[in-house]
């Protein structure tokens, strides 16, 4: 992927010398792109699917492929920023690259030394203009590390995170600002809970898919209980412009975001709540939620809906030692990046890397990360400012999405959403991309 990005980055740099964002300009369009007047941004993040599946071979997401893509603009070269989940979500709202723990969902005992729902062990901040937190590990950033939510609040804009299932089981997490107790062992929200008499809908909320919970600047503030709420609140909030936050971040539950389940409905491939999961449930979720958003007064006035995924899928390699019969299963992530993405200060010896999870005489299981990126996932944009059915092949990633949101609201650039033109780094702002925007 670096090879794909390199000529584009060179083009970006050339354009940047003229102090212009350097996106492809269709023939006959205005030479100087201007930002659309978008003041309501809706983001829906789904899970773990490759671009080639989601927007290509899969038959499980007809609504996304055949309804939403023709209605919107498709960013074909949109990339995740890491593997596995959490580091992507954190990059989306803060521009921070992973710690050795967040890069593996804060699961203890893998590449990080802290893990679980514990504070980031900060040792410094980079002085390269990207203000990356240097950390030996940990997961919850100190109050000094800001997010787009903080900047929006400072600038008088509203925001809310809408989390499906959050608080269904109040013993697991609260119905607002829901997260595990800090420093108390395993994060049990890593596992979906099936329905019971006490929790009839089950609870498939996963803290690691809710980026707001990893910043003390948010969870320490009383407004967290107002701003990070159950998805059930969305319908009410969409009713009027004044009740619709300027920034809406939606995380479906572990089934509806495609994380769990295979999508086929076959026994043994289901979610904890019995639904098929995979792109099938993700597509059903979109069919349920997207029309509500598109019908809302705020969206109609000045809205932009971004639908993307956190990271791509994997490839699997199985080899058998002919003499011993030992089978080796490698789950391989390419870890490709775009946009000259940087690894950040904390991944030395972690990415690329191989994690051995099992080593028995009969079976070896490894996770192989050949890079530090999140691979190609794609994104769909819907707005009255979008040229329906158009595509852009300009590379973007989650840092680009953050920069786009920051620019739309006139905010400063956080972390790797900032640029350093002289160093060849520009994450992109797709709201300036005239391939898809009017």
């Amino acid at each position: 992927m670096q090879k794909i990005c390199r000529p584009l980055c060179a083009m970006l740099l050339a354009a940047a010398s003229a102090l212009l964002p350097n996106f492809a300009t269709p023939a006959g369009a205005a030479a100087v792109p201007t930002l659309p007047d978008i003041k309501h941004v809706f983001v829906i993040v789904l899970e773990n699917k490759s671009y080639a599946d989601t927007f290509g071979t899969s038959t499980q997401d007809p609504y996304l492929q055949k309804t939403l893509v023709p209605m919107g603009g498709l960013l074909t070269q949109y990339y995740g920023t890491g593997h596995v989940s959490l580091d992507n979500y954190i990059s989306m709202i803060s521009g921070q690259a992973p710690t050795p723990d967040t890069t593996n969902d804060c699961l203890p005992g893998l590449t990080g030394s802290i893990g679980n729902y514990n504070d980031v062990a900060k040792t410094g901040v980079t002085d390269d203009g990207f203000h990356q937190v240097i950390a030996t590990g940990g997961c919850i950033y100190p109050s000094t590390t800001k997010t787009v939510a903080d900047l929006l609040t400072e600038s008088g804009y509203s925001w809310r995170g809408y989390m499906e299932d959050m608080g269904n089981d109040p013993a697991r997490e609260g119905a607002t600002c829901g997260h595990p107790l800090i420093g108390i062992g395993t994060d049990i929200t890593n596992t979906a809970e099936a329905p019971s008499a006490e929790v009839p809908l089950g609870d498939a909320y996963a803290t690691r898919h809710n980026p707001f919970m990893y910043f003390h600047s948010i969870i320490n503030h009383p407004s967290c209980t107002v701003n990070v709420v159950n998805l059930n609140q969305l319908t009410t909030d969409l009713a009027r412009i004044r009740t619709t936050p300027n920034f809406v971040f939606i995380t479906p539950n572990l089934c509806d975001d495609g994380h769990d389940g295979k999508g086929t409905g076959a026994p043994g491939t289901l979610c904890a709540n019995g639904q098929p999961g995979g792109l099938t449930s993700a597509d059903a979720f979109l069919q349920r939620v997207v029309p509500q958003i598109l019908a809302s007064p705020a969206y109609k006035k000045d809205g932009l809906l971004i639908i993307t995924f956190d990271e791509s899928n994997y490839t699997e390699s199985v080899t058998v030692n002919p003499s011993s019969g030992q089978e080796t299963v490698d789950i391989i992530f390419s870890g490709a990046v775009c946009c000259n993405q940087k690894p950040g200060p904390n991944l030395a010896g972690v990415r690329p890397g191989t994690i051995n999870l099992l080593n028995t005489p009969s079976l070896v299981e490894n996770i192989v990360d050949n890079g530090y990126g999140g691979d190609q996932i794609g994104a769909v944009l819907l707005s009255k400012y979008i040229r329906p059915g158009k595509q852009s092949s300009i590379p973007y990633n989650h840092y680009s999405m953050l920069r786009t949101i920051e620019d739309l609201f006139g905010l400063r650039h956080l972390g790797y959403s900032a640029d350093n033109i002289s160093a060849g780094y520009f994450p992109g702002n797709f709201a300036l991309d005239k391939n898809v925007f009017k």
Partner: protein
Amino acid sequence: MKRKAAALGVIALLLIGGTRYRPLSPEAALGRGIFFDASLSASGRLSCATCHSPAHAYGPPNGRAVQLGGPGLDRQGLRAVPSLRYVLNRTPVWSKTYIANPAERILEGDEPPTGGFGWDGRFNTLHDQAAFPLLAPNEMANAGISGIAAKLQRAPYAAAFRQVFGARVFDDPTVAFAKARLALERFELEDPSFHPYTSKYDAYLDGQTKLSTQELRGLALFDDPKRGNCATCHTDRKGVDGSHPLFTDYQFEVLAVPRNPEIAANQAPGSYDLGLCGPLRTDQAGEKKYCGMFKTPSLRNVAIRGAFFHNGRFHTLKDALRFYVQRDTDPRLWYPVSASGAVETFDDLPPSLRANADVIDQPLTHHQGEAPVWSDADIDDVIAFLRTLTDRDAEAASPALGVDPPAR
């Protein structure tokens, strides 16, 4: 009072033992009568409460590995009777989550099957579960639904049954049987006696008492992921809402508990109780990796039990805990040894399925000759902690089973 409240649609609250409870619904109140009704069994001497004794935290009242039932109360059940306390409201339906991404599947743990009622999780609801003991030949041994309905119709609570479910509820035995099971379910879900939260550990969690030095040592050993690692499955921390832990995650596990010669069915060579993959449960028979899996029970009130694990193989907590930490370091203590000196480890699994036994999770990762993660003194400390999980009303049951109640 209850009927009046129900009739008025008033949600009144009762104060029982310092905790506020809603009054039982009419269905639940009827279910209480059914739960204690021995006339519903073929023997006329066996009710739900006989094996699930309220005085023993709704667990067995004796130390038998399995309980006796049938028309003559002389037929063994197949599995140890579990306590009904605490878990019923929160037992999730049986599920096996499929995580699509294999890396996350491996990283986050390939979720084992979870939930369902019974050691093999084969019932998703209590009203489904209730049919089994009523009809099982070695339990309440009713020949069929009609017979049960006829007994219900003769019961002292028959009039109340009609009042709750309709004057013609006995016209169809199938309907009467279904309503009786519904009533049992409501009783088990609603009655506060199923979740009193009166143990010393509950008081400790609420800051109302302190654990002794020995009990705290035991708690630390229980929690230590590198040694006992008990709390990984037998969860012992408060929920984020302050709710008290239930000491189970409802997940399935292959502990490879030794075959129990006390169970007559085990005299037959080649006959195995494989839990999740059968033979009682049939829908997962093809999943060989599930063979030997049994659901993790709650450890609340475990110290008043006289039979441990699904087959009641051990009768003291000390033996049960020693098995955990010495299963692999000294297998001769637990499994048959042949004349040649070979140890038949995991002998209650067919040889072809013995690889299913958990050798990945602490403390089951060790090898013969290694030191166990706990000494005998450590085990005594853990037992001291486990005794703090006994509810106040069950403490009287402890001496009868030869164990001491916790020091208050």
